[in-house]
């Protein structure tokens, strides 16, 4: 189950001078929690966050399809397909991430979809990362995504590292406890 206050506190920790927003949402676009600077108190800020979540999930879904079919490379004009197995750690991330000029996509090892999408736009950067919960033990039976929105000075590396950290923490927290009965 999701504890709203704790989720928000967690997302707030990712914020900094360059990272202006952090969102947690489902792959279908429903916003679960958000944090942004300056601290939002209005309904308008909530509405904006919901719009951002909807757009981010739409972007994600487009690339997720490509990640699953393994033809990312072709679409982006590369020779190799994106489904070659490779580790997701920082050393090997370029081997299964195809960096385009303005977008990069990391494909999953088993061809099971995309792992992260980064969009560099004029006014800032969007980093969307999949929260990788073991599907059998997933307490929240839906694909969750984390999105960090960085301003002009944000570097892709820092954003990716923060988003990964967030994703890993959530993946552990959202695993169902092994109990025999309620």
């Amino acid at each position, binding site marked *: 189950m999701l504890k*709203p206050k704790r989720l928000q506190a967690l997302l707030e920790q990712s914020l900094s001078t360059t990272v202006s927003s952090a969102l947690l949402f489902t792959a279908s676009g429903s916003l*679960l*929690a958000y944090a942004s600077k300056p601290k939002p108190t209005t309904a308008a800020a909530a509405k904006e966050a919901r719009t951002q979540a909807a757009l981010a999930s739409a972007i994600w879904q487009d690339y997720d399809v490509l990640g699953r079919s393994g033809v990312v490379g072709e679409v982006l004009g590369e020779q190799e397909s994106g489904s070659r197995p490779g580790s997701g750690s920082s050393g090997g991330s370029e081997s299964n991430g195809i960096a385009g000029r303005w977008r990069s996509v990391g494909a999953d090892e088993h061809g099971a979809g995309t792992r992260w999408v980064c969009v560099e736009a004029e006014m800032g950067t969007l980093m969307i990362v999949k929260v990788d919960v073991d599907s059998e033990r997933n*307490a*929240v039976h*839906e694909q969750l995504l984390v999105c960090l929105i960085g301003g002009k000075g944000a570097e892709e590396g820092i954003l990716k590292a923060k988003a990964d950290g967030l994703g890993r923490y959530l993946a552990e927290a959202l695993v169902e406890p092994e109990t025999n009965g*309620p």
Partner: protein
Amino acid sequence: MRKKVLLMGKSGSGKSSMRSIVFSNYVAKDTRRLGATIDVEHSHVRFLGNLVLNLWDCGGQDAFMENYLASQRDHIFRNVEVLIYVFDVESREFDRDLHTYTQCVDALAQNSPDAQVFCLIHKMDLVQEEARESLFQDRQNALRERTRLRKGVTCLATTIWDETLYKAWSSIVYTLIPNIPTLERHLAHFAEIAEAEEVVLFERTTFLVISHAAGAQDAEHPDPHRFEKISNIVKQFKLSCSKMQSQFNAFELRAHNFSAFIDVLTPNTYIMVVMSDPAVQSATTLMNIATARKYFDKIEANDRGSKDQR
């Protein structure tokens, strides 16, 4: 599990009307077309899936009452879990009603000594508001005196025109549900994790409140009658949905300082979650309800399993 519930009282006191509203989706106005009940009307009401309320709506005319107390005595009064006796508050022969009531309670004490008795002082809408409390107290004292049963008697003032009907029937049915402490514990746990202001569990068809839990709160809630009011309101809404040929499934209300969600929890219950922090997104609460669904289903299945073994 079958539980026998007797519904008795003088002719015209309102027994069939109450039964129709609570269990048969009648609206208060529809009860006008109900006629006198002839002899006993049996209805088997499925409640919470595995509980069957064997409701004996006994006709209140003198001829029938004499019959019940004489020739059909054992048949009627044996194996009873709950006796609901309805008094019409406007009756001019309260002493005579009391006498008949005492006879019924005696018959009950002989045949089902462990039964629970509820006395509903009905049609309270016909009494002046200022006089209601004192009149109810008078009746209650008289009844308490006359009921010599192990479990005593519980008196409730009711009318079909407001939520007191739901309060009374919720209290009655609450005593019949076997695993209430477990349900309440889990509900409280859910309320704590989901950071909800209040969580209420309703039965699926009748919308009677089974149980409720509150999250961490400082003050007592100002309205102790909110549950039956909600039962009443949501049930009316559900009925109006079915009049439009659509099924009521779930409900989400977002106001500027709170949000409320009513959704199916198990095949036999609805849950209502009230969140007081408007910053919490709807999707989060709905997801929490979805997660809780599995656990409550498991509880219900466990109970059903253990009952089948008995």
